[in-house]
C-alpha cells in the first residue's frame, strides 16, 4: 500500500513541484501528536502531514476530512477530498459529499447574511460596544470559514470601536492569530509589536508576555532571523504552558504548543549561537528548562554540542529530520537550520587542530546528500569565508593556515598608507586645478565646435595609439 501511495499522482505532482516529500516513518504517533492541537492549527497540520508524508498520508487525510466536515470551511473540505481522491481513490472518505457541501454552503451564506444584517442594525443604533461585538462575531465567522482576508478586515474594523485597553489588546491578538494563519509573518510581527506596546498593566500584561514572545519567535523563525527567533523562544516564560485562553484563543493548542517552543527554540539557538552562549542562555536558563523537559532529545543535542561532541549531536538531529520536516512551520527553514548547525560544528571541530585528514572529517561528519564529497563541502565553506582553512588535495589534509600578525599589520599599514597617499594626491590635483582656474564647463560656441572636434580628433589619435601600442 505504501508504494501505491508513493506512486500516486498526487505525490508525483508534489515531487515535480519541488515540494517536500518524506518517505520514512516519523518517530511520533499521529493520533497523540495531533491531539495536542485544536481548531485551525489541527487541520492545517494534518493537511501538511498528509501532503508531505507518504507514510502517514492516508491516516492524516482521513482525520483531516472528518475534522473539516465538522467545521464551516467548505473550500478546505473540497480541496482535501480532491487531494485524497488522487492518493487513495478507493477510500470511502475520498468521494466528495456534495450534498453536505451544498447544504453547508447555504448555511454559511445564511449565517453571513444574518451577521451582516445584525451589524448594520448595530451601526444604525450607534452603540459602540455592539458594533465592536458585531464586527468581532463577523471576524470569528470568517475565520471559521477559512476566509482570512475578510476575517482580518472584520477584526481590523473593531479598532475604532474599542473602548478599553483590554479590548484593544484582544483585537490585536486576534489580528496576530489571523496573520499567523495567513502565514503573513511581517504583518504578524507588526501586530505583535502593538500587543507588546499596549497599555495593559499588572496581571493582564504578564499573561500576554509569553504569547507575544512565543509568536514573535515563530514569526522570526519563519522569516529566517534565527538568532532573534532563538532569543524570543528561550525567553518565553513557562507560564505559557498553563496559560488561560487570551482573546478567546488557547494559544498553546491553537497556535504553537509548548513542545513546539522547545523544538523551535532549541534548533534556532543551535543554529545561531556559539558554545558559551548556548551554555549560558539555553542550558542554564531556568525558564527555558521547563520547555526543554518536554523534548529531552533537543536538550541532549544542545549539551552534546556544548561538550564538543559534534558528530553525536548531528546524529541526534539527523534522527529527527523526518519529524521536523512534517512540522508545518519548521519544514521550510529546516534545511537552513540544519546546514547552519552542521557548518558551525565543522568550524568548531576544526578550531583546536592545525591539520586534520579529510578521511577523518568524512567519518566525523557524515554527508547529508547536499554535496558529493566532504572536499566540496569544505571548499564551499572556505570560499564563503565560513571556515578559515586550506585543503591539501594531494595528502588529503585540511590545514589551518599559519598566521603572522606582525607581517599582516605591516602590510596592512603599508596598503593603508598608500591608499591615503593616493587619495590625498587626487585631492591636491583637484585643488590645484581649481586654483589654476581649470574646470570643464560649457562655453557656448567653443563647446559646440571646439570640444567635439577635439574629442573626435583625440579619439582618432587614441585609436591609432592603441593599435600601435599593441593594446
Amino acid at each position, binding site marked *: 500500500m505504501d508504494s501505491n501511495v508513493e506512486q500516486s499522482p498526487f505525490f508525483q505532482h508534489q515531487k515535480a513541484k519541488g515540494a517536500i516529500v518524506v518517505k520514512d516513518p516519523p518517530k511520533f504517533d499521529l493520533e497523540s501528536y495531533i491531539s495536542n492541537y485544536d481548531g485551525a492549527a489541527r487541520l492545517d497540520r494534518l493537511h501538511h502531514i498528509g501532503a508531505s508524508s507518504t507514510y502517514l498520508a492516508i491516516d492524516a487525510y482521513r482525520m483531516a476530512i472528518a475534522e473539516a466536515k465538522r467545521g464551516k470551511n467548505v473550500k478546505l473540505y473540497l480541496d482535501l477530498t480532491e487531494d485524497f481522491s488522487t492518493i487513495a481513490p478507493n477510500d470511502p472518505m475520498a468521494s466528495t459529499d456534495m450534498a453536505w457541501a451544498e447544504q453547508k454552503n447555504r448555511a454559511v451564506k445564511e449565517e453571513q447574511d444574518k451577521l451582516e444584517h445584525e451589524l448594520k442594525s448595530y451601526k444604525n443604533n450607534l452603540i459602540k460596544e455592539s458594533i465592536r461585538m458585531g464586527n468581532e462575531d463577523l471576524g470569528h465567522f470568517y475565520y471559521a470559514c477559512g476566509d482570512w482576508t475578510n476575517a482580518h478586515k472584520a477584526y481590523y474594523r473593531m479598532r475604532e470601536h474599542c473602548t478599553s485597553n483590554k479590548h484593544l489588546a484582544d483585537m490585536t491578538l486576534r489580528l496576530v492569530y489571523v496573520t499567523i494563519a495567513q502565514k503573513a509573518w511581517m504583518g504578524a510581527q507588526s501586530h505583535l509589536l502593538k500587543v507588546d506596546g499596549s497599555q495593559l498593566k499588572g496581571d493582564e500584561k504578564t499573561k500576554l508576555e509569553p504569547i507575544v514572545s512565543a509568536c514573535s519567535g515563530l514569526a522570526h523563525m519563519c522569516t529566517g532571523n534565527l538568532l532573534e527567533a532563538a532569543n524570543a523562544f528561550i525567553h518565553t516564560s513557562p507560564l505559557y504552558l498553563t496559560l488561560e485562553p487570551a482573546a478567546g484563543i488557547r494559544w498553546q493548542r491553537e497556535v504553537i504548543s509548548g513542545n513546539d517552543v522547545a523544538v523551535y527554540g532549541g534548533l534556532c539557538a543551535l543554529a545561531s549561537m556559539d558554545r558559551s552562549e548556548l551554555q549560558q542562555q539555553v542550558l542554564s536558563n531556568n525558564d527555558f528548562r521547563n520547555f526543554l523537559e518536554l523534548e529531552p532529545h533537543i536538550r541532549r543535542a544542545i549539551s552534546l554540542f556544548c561538550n564538543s561532541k559534534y558528530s553525536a549531536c548531528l546524529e541526534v538531529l539527523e534522527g529527527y529530520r523526518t519529524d521536523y520536516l512534517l512540522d508545518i512551520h519548521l519544514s521550510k527553514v529546516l534545511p537552513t537550520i540544519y546546514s547552519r548547525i552542521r557548518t558551525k560544528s565543522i568550524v568548531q571541530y576544526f578550531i583546536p587542530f592545525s591539520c586534520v585528514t579529510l578521511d577523518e572529517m568524512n567519518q566525523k561528519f557524515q554527508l547529508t546528500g547536499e554535496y558529493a564529497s566532504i572536499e566540496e563541502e569544505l571548499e564551499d565553506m572556505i570560499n564563503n569565508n565560513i571556515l578559515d582553512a586550506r585543503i591539501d588535495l594531494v595528502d588529503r589534509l585540511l590545514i589551518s593556515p599559519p598566521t603572522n600578525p606582525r607581517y599582516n599589520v605591516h602590510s596592512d599599514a*603599508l596598503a593603508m598608507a598608500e591608499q591615503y597617499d593616493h587619495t590625498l594626491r587626487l585631492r591636491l590635483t583637484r585643488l590645484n586645478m581649481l586654483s589654476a582656474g581649470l574646470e570643464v564647463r560649457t562655453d557656448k560656441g567653443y563647446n559646440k565646435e571646439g570640444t567635439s572636434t577635439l574629442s573626435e580628433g583625440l579619439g582618432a589619435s*587614441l585609436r591609432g595609439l592603441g593599435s600601435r601600442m599593441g593594446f
Partner: protein
Amino acid sequence: MASDLLNLLFSFQPDLPELQEKLEYDRQARSFVSQLANVSGQHFLKGADTSQDIFEVLNPTVNSIAYTYALQARIVAAGENPKLQKNIPDQLRPGGSVWNKLALFMETFDPVQMRYVGPEWKRLVDYIERVARVMGTPGVAISPIRAGMLRLDRTTGAFTLTHLHFIRLCMETRSYVAALPILDNYIHSLPTTIPKPVLEQLEYSVPGADHTNSGEYIHSRSGHTDKITVADVQEYYLLGAMAYIGLRQFKQAKQFLEHILVTPSSNLANGLMLEAYKKWVLVSCLANGSVPPLPRTVNCAAIKQVRAASRPYEALAEAFTQIHNLPKLKSQANAGKDTWAEDGNTGLVNELRDHQYRVYISRLSRTYSAIPVSNISNFIGGSVDELTHYLEMLTDEGHLNARLERISKPEEIVVLRFFLDPTQGPLAKTEKQQQQALLGQTERTNILAEQVKSADYRLSLTKEYVEHVKRQSKKAAANAAGDAMDTTWGDGVVPEEEDMMADLH
C-alpha cells in the same frame, strides 16, 4: 664690440659673494637678462665655429643665461621654424656640433639661472622637439628634453606644456620606459598666477631663492610654459596612463586615470573623461580584480554621463569578477568586439581575458594548500601539460607564491603547492624589506605634506582668499566693536575700507 659683448656676458657671476643675498641676486639676474635681450643676435654669431666661438668661451654651467642667448642666436640665424629637412643646417641636426652643445647644455645648465629665462628655455626645448620631428626621428629629442626638465626642476612636479609634449613624443616612439622618470613624479602644482610683489620683493620668494617647491618659480608668468587648459592636463594623465599600461604597471595606470576622473567640472564631462573612465574600468580589473568605488571627489553628475556611455565596459567588468564563470567573460568580450576596437581598447580586453585565468588560479590559494594540476584543468579546461607550462610561467614571473612539484607515488602527477605563510616562498618579503617599504612610504608622505603646505600657501595668495580674509576680519571687527559703538547707519563705511592688499595685484 666683441670684447664689449664678452664683458657684458661675464658681467653676471652667480658665485660672487655679494650675490649670496637672494634679493641682490634677483636684481642682478633681472637686469642681466634685460640687457642680453637687447643685444642683437648678430653679435653672438661673430666668430662662430672658430676658436673665438662664444660657446668655447662660456661655461654652460656657470654662464647659463648667457649660453642660452648664444644658443638662441644660432637657432634664430638658422631659422627658428624649419618645415623641411633641407632647411636645417648640419650643425643643428642631431649629431651636429651645435645640437651636441644644446644637448650637453640641457644636462649641465644651472637650474637657478634658468628660472630667469623661462621663455628662452622653452624655445630651446621646443626647438629640439621640432628638429627631431622634422628629421623624422622624434626619439632623439626624448633624452635631451627629459634632461632639461629634470635639470630645471628635480621633482618635475610643476606642470608645463613641455610635460605634455614630452609624453606625446614618448608615446609616438613607444619609449614607455624613457617616460618613467617624469611620470613617476607626482604633479604637485599647476602653473598659477603668483602676484608680482611676492616674486620681486620678498627675500624668500624671488625665483632665485631656495624653494622647496618648484611651483614657486615655474608659474604662468615665468615663461616656462604657455597657458595650459584642462584638456592639456587630462591628456598628459591619459597618455601617462597608457604608457604605464604599455609597461603593464596597471596600478599606476589606474591611479593616473583617477586624476582625470576627479577633474573639477560644472556638472559635465568631456571626451577625455569618457576615455579615461573606460580604461579605468578595465585597468581596475587588472590591478585589483574588481572595480573599486570611484574616488569621492569626482563630480557625480559628470560621472553619471560618462557611465551612461560606458555600459559595455561595466558589463565586461561584471563578467570579469564572476571568477567561476569563465565562459561569460569570453562571450561578453566577443559580443562587444566592435566597441573595443573602436575605442582602441581591444588589447586591454584581451589582457583581461588572460588575466582572469591568473586571478582564478591565485584565488585557489585561498582554498587549497596543494592541488593536482589535473584538478585545475578539470575546472578551466586545457590539457595538463599546457596548464603546467602556464603555471610554471606564472610562478617564474612572480604572479603566484607557489611552486610546482612532481610526485611519483602511484603514478606521476604534477602538483601546485601554495606557500601559506606570507614569509615563505618566492614572493616572500622579509621584515627588513617591509620596514624599508614603510620607511619609504613615510618619506613619500612627508614630501607630500610639504607639497600640500605649498599648495596651501599659493592658495593664500589668490585674490579670492584675500577677499575672504578681508570680509572675515571686517566681520570680526564689527562684532567686537558692535556693542561699544553707536550702531547708526553710517557705521558700515569704516575708514579702513581701503584695500590693504591692493598692491599685491
